[in-house]
């Protein structure tokens, strides 16, 4: 019987509290090898703090963190050799050109794939002679991503990769980079992407964890979640009834003759209840991750 491969990231009941700011309050997270795992949460939910604990930039106050089965507190260098991290604000030494910046990164790495570097620079039409100060925000992100995938690490950690990018800028390059990275060794390359812009990464994510107020609210496979959670809209002849006592449903909105509910899996019994309450019309819609996320962090009582 084959041995189950250990998770690339295994966090259990992590606690890290600041005096006033973003805190992690008992968060558990497991990322399996070969996955593209989304860490989804609002600004201030605890995503960056969690990532900092993975990198030993912060020491957990309680709970355990392991990366590649190793403890970041004791084996920081061994872990960092095998991963690459792109923070949400990328900085370069101002006197460096793109070429200098990449060479500088490469100097810290045992391995550097020049072919990927050349391919991606070409794809993004980045002239290596350009000063890093002359780059747009999007271009700086491109250079940082190239620098992260050329050492061909086992784990890529991206913190808000699209933050600060003009909404009109095509963000396909993130897709391109992750694609090149994972395609070279499928099953062995893992991505953890942290974001609050869910729809941008909807298709890219295999599995996700929604974080809110420092806790993991839901961890699920993306396709499973999209097929299980549904939104029901019901119209009534008179004022819509109160659905707060209905098991398996969460009220998203109740206005006049309209009732909007979210269900998880068993929509049957909820639809039956609606029909029992004499609903004139019932519409059913499956949900995208973005909708599920909005409901998870916005709805009283969370997800059904």
């Amino acid at each position, binding site marked *: 019987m084959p041995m189950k491969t250990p998770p690339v990231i295994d966090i259990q009941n992590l606690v890290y509290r600041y005096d006033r700011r973003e805190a992690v309050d008992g968060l558990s997270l497991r990322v399996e090898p070969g996955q593209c795992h989304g860490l989804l949460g609002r600004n201030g939910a605890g995503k960056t703090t969690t990532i900092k604990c993975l990198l030993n930039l912060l020491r957990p106050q309680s709970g355990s963190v392991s990366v590649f089965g190793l403890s970041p507190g004791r084996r920081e260098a061994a872990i960092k050799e095998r991963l690459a991290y792109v923070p949400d604000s990328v900085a370069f030494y101002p006197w460096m050109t793109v070429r200098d910046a990449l060479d500088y990164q490469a100097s810290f790495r045992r391995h550097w794939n020049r072919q990927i570097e050349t391919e991606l620079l070409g794809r993004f039409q980045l002239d290596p002679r350009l000063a890093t100060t002359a780059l747009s925000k999007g271009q700086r992100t491109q250079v940082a991503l190239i620098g992260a995938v050329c050492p061909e690490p086992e784990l890529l950690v991206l913190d808000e990769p699209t933050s600060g990018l003009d909404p009109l800028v095509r963000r396909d390059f993130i897709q391109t980079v992750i*694609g090149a990275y994972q395609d070279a060794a*499928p099953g062995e390359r893992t991505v953890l992407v942290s974001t609050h812009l869910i729809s941008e990464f909807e298709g890219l994510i295999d599995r996700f964890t929604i974080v809110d107020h420092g806790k993991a609210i839901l961890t699920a496979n993306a396709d499973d979640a999209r097929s299980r959670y549904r939104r029901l809209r019901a119209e009534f002849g008179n004022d819509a009834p109160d659905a707060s006592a209905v098991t398996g449903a969460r009220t998203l909105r109740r206005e006049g003759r309209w009732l909007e509910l979210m269900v998880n899996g068993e929509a049957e019994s909820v639809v039956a209840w609606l029909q029992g309450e004499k609903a004139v019309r*019932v519409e059913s819609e*499956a949900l995208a991750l973005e909708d599920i996320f909005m409901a998870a962090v916005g709805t009283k009582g969370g997800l059904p």
Partner: protein
Amino acid sequence: MIALLNFRSGVPVYRQIVEQVKAAAAGGTLRDGDPLPSVRALAEELRINRNTAAKAYAELEAEGVIETRAGKGCFLKAGSPSPLRRSVRAERLAEAVDSVIVQAHHLQISPEELTELLAQRLQQFQQQQANRPE
């Protein structure tokens, strides 16, 4: 190959790709022996994970819809799927039919209305097939 993904359909992404490739083949947009984009190219085009694209292709290959030629890529398989795959195909169809039945129930569409709708759409499809240029 253009595919449209609907993240609000409740249908797994890889499944949507499988269905669209099959629809393209049935409709004549994709013909026997036509090449399909590589896993990576498909993933980039659709802005999805390469694992998902790979899963779609693995499924299409298992269903006998496409074949991989070493070093050349994936191509639409010539001729109809082998009879050995019939049970797999029947199973897939049953899944799709179940999903339609549940949808109809939620939308309060009666069994009679559903069968009538099915007959209508089937007739339309057969007409389109007949009109398809060879």
